[in-house]
């Protein structure tokens, strides 16, 4: 096993050297990439003896010889079908990790900088901001996956919302896995900087054009400055054979607000690490999510909400629906650091098991080092309620339809919060797929 992992690393090393030789980025980034590659060589993929990876075994991913994708040359892709209508004038498309100017539409984004991350690092107008925040929150020193993503950082999206700008149109970033070849690896990267008192809505959409095996290793860094607001949706609809690992790290300024909902649907194995650092007073966040997994799917969410300063609120609701022999992991840590008084933190994880073979390992954790705080957390794992099912049946609804309806009702607590109609509709459809009726 060890030798196999080493072999795969060699695979990435070879690709790394090839990129460096053929298309070097800019000197600053080459330094970062080089050091990240070194770090990946030392760390490798996280292994199950690591407490944070106890229930998610990446050995099948490490074993596979994925080939890092290169910048696609003039490919014709119908990316439009992945665009939520609300974002028709503001969608950015990233193919196999590489930003595509041709496939993107930016007419609704006059007041916003939305460009290739590589250009941002190179361009004198943006490089100060880009360089100060890139690889800052999603550091690569302790995390092999982040290191690997950073080592292959050659493109991605830089989204800069200037001070006081309120962006009305939701902005969508579609991360597309395209069938250039099977077994390809992509390293999508997103850096969002929302300046003081700005506000925006961001939709990340992970999708694929094919159903082959591939590997997406994504990193999103989000900086929300004082008084700024960001509403953030993250849809993960990778193919059923895909490996998907992803990191979202957000830092919140004074009196800022971050409202994020992560929907995890696809992938044979998916892992999402989300961390929110509240390191200025008065910040508030909602970190919600829904994971749906069926047979042969494994989905893992690790969340860290870090209250470092007083008077911050965090709310978390994650729900999971598991069918067949699906496996899910939810691990939610809330830290309340010394001095973070008047913290209000609330965390809930609820799971619905639709089959006796499905399993979830849930672990909400609170670590509190301040005394004047309000914190609560809880986790639940259950099946469909037989009395509810009977109630529906007693009104003429057949058991199969009843089960779908109750499952839909369970998910709705997360879905109904979503303010983008077409996302809600898409989710209702996914949840109600077996249900041969439209509800609204």
């Amino acid at each position, binding site marked *: 096993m060890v030798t196999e992992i080493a072999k795969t690393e060699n695979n990435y090393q070879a690709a790394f050297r090839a990129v460096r030789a053929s298309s070097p980025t800019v000197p600053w980034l080459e330094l970062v990439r080089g050091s990240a590659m070194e770090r990946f060589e030392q760390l490798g993929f996280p292994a199950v003896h690591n407490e944070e990876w106890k229930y998610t075994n990446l050995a099948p991913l490490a074993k596979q010889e994925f080939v890092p994708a290169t910048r696609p040359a003039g490919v014709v892709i119908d990316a439009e079908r992945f665009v939520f209508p609300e974002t028709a004038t503001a969608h950015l498309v990233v193919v196999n990790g590489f930003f595509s100017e041709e496939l993107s539409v930016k007419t609704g984004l006059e007041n916003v900088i939305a460009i290739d991350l590589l250009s941002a690092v190179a361009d004198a107008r943006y490089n100060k901001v880009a360089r100060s925040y890139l690889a800052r929150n999603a550091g690569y020193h302790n995390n092999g996956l982040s290191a690997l993503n950073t080592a292959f950082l050659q493109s991605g999206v830089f989204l800069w919302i200037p001070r006081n700008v309120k962006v009305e149109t939701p902005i969508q970033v579609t991360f597309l896995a395209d069938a250039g070849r099977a077994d390809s690896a992509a390293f999508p990267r997103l850096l969002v900087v929302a300046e003081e008192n700005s506000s925006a809505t961001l939709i990340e959409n992970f999708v694929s054009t094919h159903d082959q095996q591939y590997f997406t290793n994504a990193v999103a860094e989000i900086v929300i400055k004082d008084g700024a607001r960001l509403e953030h949706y993250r849809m993960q609809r990778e193919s059923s054979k895909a490996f998907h690992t992803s990191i979202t790290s957000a830092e919140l300024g004074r009196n800022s607000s971050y409202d994020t909902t992560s929907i995890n649907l696809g992938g044979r194995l998916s892992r999402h690490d989300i961390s929110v650092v509240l390191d200025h007073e008065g910040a508030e966040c909602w970190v919600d999510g829904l994971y749906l997994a069926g047979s042969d799917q494994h989905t893992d969410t690790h969340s860290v909400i870090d209250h470092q300063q007083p008077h911050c609120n965090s709310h978390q609701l994650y729900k999971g629906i598991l069918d067949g022999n699906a496996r899910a992991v939810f691990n939610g840590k809330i830290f309340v650091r010394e001095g973070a008084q008047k913290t209000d933190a609330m965390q809930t994880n609820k799971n619905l098991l639709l089959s006796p073979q499905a399993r979830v390992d849930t672990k909400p954790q609170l670590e509190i080092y301040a005394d004047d705080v309000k914190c609560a957390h809880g986790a639940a794992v259950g099946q469909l309620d037989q*009395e509810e099912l009977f109630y*529906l*049946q*007693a009104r003429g609804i057949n058991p199969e*339809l*009843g089960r779908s309806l109750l499952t839909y*009702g369970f998910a709705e607590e997360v879905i109904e919060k979503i303010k983008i109609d077409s996302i809600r509709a898409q989710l209702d459809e996914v949840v109600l797929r077996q249900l041969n*009726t*439209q509800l609204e």
Partner: protein
Amino acid sequence: MLEIRNLHAAINGNEILKGINLTVKKGEIHAIMGPNGSGKSTLAKVLAGHPQYEVTAGEVIYEGKNLLELAPDERAREGVFMAFQYPIEIPGVSNAQFLRLAYNEKRKHLGEEELDPLEFKDLLKERAKVVEMDASFMTRSVNEGFSGGEKKRNEILQMAVLEPKLAVLDETDSGLDIDALRVVAGGVNQLLTPDNAIIVVTHYQRLLNYIVPDYVHVLAGGRIAREGGKELALELESKGYDWITNPNVAGSANLNAAS
């Protein structure tokens, strides 16, 4: 319409119904009364097909069919309706969605066209008038956060939408305030036709002032201990149950209905 013969039913191995006989014809209103724990809700749930109850003997013929052979949802689509003593909350599913699905399931069963959400909205608005139910309840999750009385009213709204042939109303009056009782009972009366029938389970005469029964049955210890006309309810109101359950011991409180 309904014939119950020597019905015995048990839950978790405890026999609760010990030989019920009851015949209900079209156009009739039957009241079932009886002490707490005597098996009234058990009878209602057995008729609705609750899976936890096991029928150990007897039969139930409904419209010429063996009712006990039908699944609960089939019974409902065939026109059997039970208003729950304790209605269930269904989080995340709106009242309107739920009612439309239930309504359409029945339409499909009858070979009729399903109604789309817009068409159904009109129908629902019409039916809601029967129980004077505010439109705001339609977008809320089924029974979630409803007060006790609101849940009961919602049961009768469902009855108004589904138009059952046989409705079993299990203590629909309990939890309703005086005005609500009048409205809901009035609604039930509006729904009564010469072709359907109603069984009301209640503890109180005041409901029977509005929904006047043709027959009153007193259930005690899992059997029908007494039957009569609407006067029987009045008699119970003044005398209690002791004279029926324990006729030899006048004034005895030694009531052991479930044994």
